[in-house]
């Protein structure tokens, strides 16, 4: 499989312990930055009712869906309890030269 890293913009667009949206190829992603400056990416829509996670709340490594408070660990994509019951897809991320890159051809469900 070829390695395709997509430029998702400047790293600073994601605040500390926060989430930001990213769209590529008609698909929505969510980019995360932890309080200790680690970056992660998941599918942009909650697996429960397809609500945009970028409007949600980041607490540690948990992203909480803005509509129904479904919770996921964004470092693994694991659903952490109802109404989130299906894991999120996660994507490898790297930061180089102050920009975030997302590897979208190598994802884990």
């Amino acid at each position, binding site marked *: 499989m070829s390695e395709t890293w997509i430029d998702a913009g400047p790293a600073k667009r994601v605040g500390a312990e*926060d989430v930001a949206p990213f769209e590529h190829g008609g698909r929505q992603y969510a980019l995360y930055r932890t309080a200790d400056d680690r970056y992660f990416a998941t599918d942009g829509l909650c697996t429960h009712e*397809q609500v945009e996670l970028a409007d949600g709340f980041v*607490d540690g490594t948990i992203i909480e869906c803005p509509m129904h*408070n479904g919770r996921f660990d964004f470092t693994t994509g694991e659903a952490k309890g*109802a109404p989130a*019951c299906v894991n999120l897809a996660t994507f490898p991320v790297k930061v180089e030269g102050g920009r975030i890159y997302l590897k979208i051809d190598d994802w884990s469900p």
Partner: protein
Amino acid sequence: MSVFVARDYSLIGPESQKAVAAGLASAKWYAPLIPRAELKELMQRKDGPAIRDTLIWFAALFLFGGLGVYFWGSWAAVPFFIVYGAIYGGSSDSRWHECGHRTAFKTKWMNDALYEIACFMVMREPEVWRWSHTRHHTDTIIVGRDPEILQPRPPDVGSLLLNIFALKGGPIFFRKLFLHAGGRLDPEEQTYIPESERPKVYTKARIYLAIYAAVILACVGFRSILPAMLIGLPSFYGAWLVLFFGATQHLGLAEDVLDHRLNSRTVYMNPIFRFLYWSMNFHVEHHIFPLIPYHALPALHEKIKSQCPPPYPSTITAYREIIPTVIRQLREPTYYVRRELPPNASPGPARAAPAVAA
């Protein structure tokens, strides 16, 4: 002359299909623009306020329950049980609600623990109501989709009156408890509870029945209803407070609109009501941003009130609107209260309900 046809409020009837066809199911709702940094600040979780409130809440339960037991057998016990019932069977509604959203406390287990306790007190099966409330937030007051519409149009005043003491809702709760304990859901519940979560429903229903059986055994053993006055019956004799607060949320407002400013009420309440109701009187705000904890809703209200209809200045003011509206809907079921947005507010994606409005 048009003939009014009563709508089907069930989740498995034609109104459900109509709501989906009309784009009202799982739709995009109005939300005011708030800078992300401000929203993030409002969403911050804290343990402190909810721990304080919960300690006071349990202390009040033990105090008034204890005094009720102390004076048991005399009329002096009555006022203490009235207060105990209101706390146990009434204010547990807001605890159930806030902890169900997992916003009351920062610590997850604290939310979950109080959620389970409050669910039992207010006669709401934890898993069933978690999913029911999820649907309520997706499709708020959308006929055929929302399982938590308090009253249809025309209203069923008999059920409203019976529910002052949970005499309509209580028997339904126990009927469903036996159904679930037998490993089954009713057809409506099957529309919103995923397969993977159903075993939890059945297990908890059996636990509930075991608790009620233990209370009955205690009553028989002590030859007194006092154990049931403390556990079980308060869900009935304290239910009036659930209705008192709950009716202010949506009753008499528009159906089938995609704007919580038009189908929900924000009502200013005094500090005692705010404590008992955990600030759910800011109900427009809660529906627009369910991630924001109860203790931050007043601050959210200040930020978005210029975009919302004027809040009701008191609970009495709200009831001066609700009671005449319910009475009028008995003879004029298409009538509802139309909330006016401020002139400079975004109209949002609201749909005008095709009915007579105030």
